[in-house]
């Protein structure tokens, strides 16, 4: 068919190794870093495993709230949902688009909500009870400032956050968001997070302070993962204090 032919033609092009130039806020301003197709594929695989750990499987439905400039992780989450055969609805993460989130939530009844922002919650709270809305949702992966709001409303939300050019995803243990140790080195200096690229990344990134208040746990997590966990001050205290 038409679009399939277009994409088949596109595959004949000599495409560059790069998929993205990721820009991220660091302590001393915006930085950028290249992201190759090979890295994107590895990142997608890692996200797939993390979401599988949350019990995501075929037959479920997801809602993803994300912005146009978040493709470097949005692409991996979408790739993971495709791999898990979980159809997703998509809405903006910006507060003014909260009505779209509400409509998707009402009509598609998602089992999984990924990327909820505090701005979306604030918008929703004008006409809905946040707790009632999300308490029955099996998995809620929320941005840092949204986590305490949700937990305060009785929703057992998990943290997800961009940590510089990396994505951190909390597991069901809810004791800090995992960062892929095979690709990144995360650490803390004076109560703030730092990140460096692992050996396998094409773009070098020496240890970079991110200006994000938080700390890092390195022991093996109860979920079985050895990936370090970041705990962000903005996301509030963790619900379980295992370390």
């Amino acid at each position, binding site marked *: *068919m*038409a*679009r*399939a*032919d*277009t*994409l088949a*033609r*596109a*595959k004949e*092009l*000599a*495409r*560059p190794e*790069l*998929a*993205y*130039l*990721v*820009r991220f806020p660091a302590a001393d301003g915006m930085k*950028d870093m290249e992201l190759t197709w090979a890295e994107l594929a590895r990142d997608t695989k890692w996200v797939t495993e993390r979401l599988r750990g949350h019990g995501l499987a*075929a*037959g479920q*439905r997801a809602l993803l709230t*994300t*912005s*146009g*400039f*978040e*493709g*470097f992780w*949005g*692409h991996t989450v*979408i790739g993971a949902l*495709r791999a898990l*055969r979980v*159809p*997703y*609805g*998509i*809405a*903006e993460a*910006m507060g*003014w*688009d909260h*009505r*779209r989130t509400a*409509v*998707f939530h009402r*009509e*598609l009844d998602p089992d999984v909500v990924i990327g909820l922002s505090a701005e979306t919650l604030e918008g929703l709270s004008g006409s809905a009870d946040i707790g009632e809305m999300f308490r029955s949702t099996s998995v809620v992966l929320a941005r840092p400032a949204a986590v305490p709001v949700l937990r305060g409303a009785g929703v057992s939300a998990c943290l997800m956050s961009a940590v510089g050019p990396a994505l951190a995803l909390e597991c069901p243990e809810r004791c800090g968001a995992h960062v892929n140790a095979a690709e990144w080195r995360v650490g803390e200096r004076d109560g703030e997070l730092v990140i460096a690229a692992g050996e396998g990344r094409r773009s070098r990134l020496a240890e970079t302070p991110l200006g994000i208040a938080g700390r890092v746990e390195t022991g093996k997590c109860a979920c079985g993962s050895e990936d370090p966990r970041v705990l962000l001050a903005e996301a509030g205290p963790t619900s379980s204090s295992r370390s």
Partner: protein
Amino acid sequence: MVGDRDTGDRYFEPQVETMPREQLRALQEERVLELVEYAYGNSPFYRELWDEHGVHPRDIRSLEDFRARVPFITKDMVRAYRARTGDPFGGLLCVPTEELTSVSSSSGTTGDPEFFAEIWEDAPPLVTAQVRDLWELGLRPGDRVLSPPGTFRNLMDPGYQALGAVVIEVDTWIGKMHEVVEALRTYRPAYIQMMYPQMVELEHLAEKVDLKEAFSSLKGASCAGQPLSRKMRERIRDDWGIDVYEYTSAADTGTAWECREHDGFHLWEDTVFAECIEVEEHGWRDVQESDLGELVATDLDNRAAPLIRYRSEDLVRLSRGRCGCGRTHARMWVAGRRGDETLVQGRSVVLRDIWNAVEDQPETVAGVFQIVRERREVDELRLRVGYDPELTGDVDALAGRLGEAVLERTGVKPVLDMRTEEDLLNTMTSVAKFPRVVKS
């Protein structure tokens, strides 16, 4: 200089894009006949509707049969089905929900957004059908593009990347044009997608920033959501040096873009069967090529939830003549929405006349305005108009001048509600559209 690039490899899919009309028609016929069978067998909405009209796929053996027998559908019909059955897809879905890849939605400027069910492999359908348009604009493998502002029609990146473009993550939403200009200077992208409010924002930056220099790396920029006014277009092209490509919705089956000729929006007719018609009290008729009619669209490349003879309410002129670019696919020119016309004490007022009056005043040259009305028929013409505070000394004097200008163009003296542009743009509830007609 704008628009003078090498055209040696102008077409992305030459055979399809320049296909002779007879061949294109044969292809459409084949797809329509398959579609009718498929939709009747799988969509409860179409089966119910066509049964009511005594239409069965076995009676549809040609495009003529299809046009003569298959009933039109409207947004309201799908909404009614949705309300009656609780099916969020209004009965249009032809596959089980589990087989969908994703669900995106319409801008939702006039109520709840409507869902678009999607099945795809490498890139979502909307942006995939833009690949030919982006190629025409000049985008090539290795070029850089800035990430687009919104995601409500799904993540666009995979489409750009299919073309070999590298996406640079920059927040291009309203209020960020300062950063966008910085990013343009640093990364020298070839393409950026913009929206009307960003153009207004740039207008304000123009005094402080050398926009021509900042935009000089662009092969083109796209702009959607609503037509650019003539003045705005000239400003973008001549003062900022941007080759701007407008695009619009192809009746919710995809998008229709300008080519480098900038003379109408190309429909990709291997993805949509388009009709330009006038619906009358009893039946309908085709309009002449030079006349305005309503765009009616049928999805030819959508097995998730195809629209079939969907009345878009868009008033367009449609031409199937070969374009200066050499493509054979039809072009359309959009005059407005069927519902945009307002009757003020029986007198017809169209958007374009108001627009011309608004942009003739220097303080409101950006053309940011809305008609405020409960119904199409009103006793007074209420207009909310955004002005640039830096250019406006006396708001009352401006209102006086503007009121006279609107009266002159439309024959109606408006009731004006003057706001700053920023105030008015901040009332937007969608990335895609600044609504021209609002209820309150």
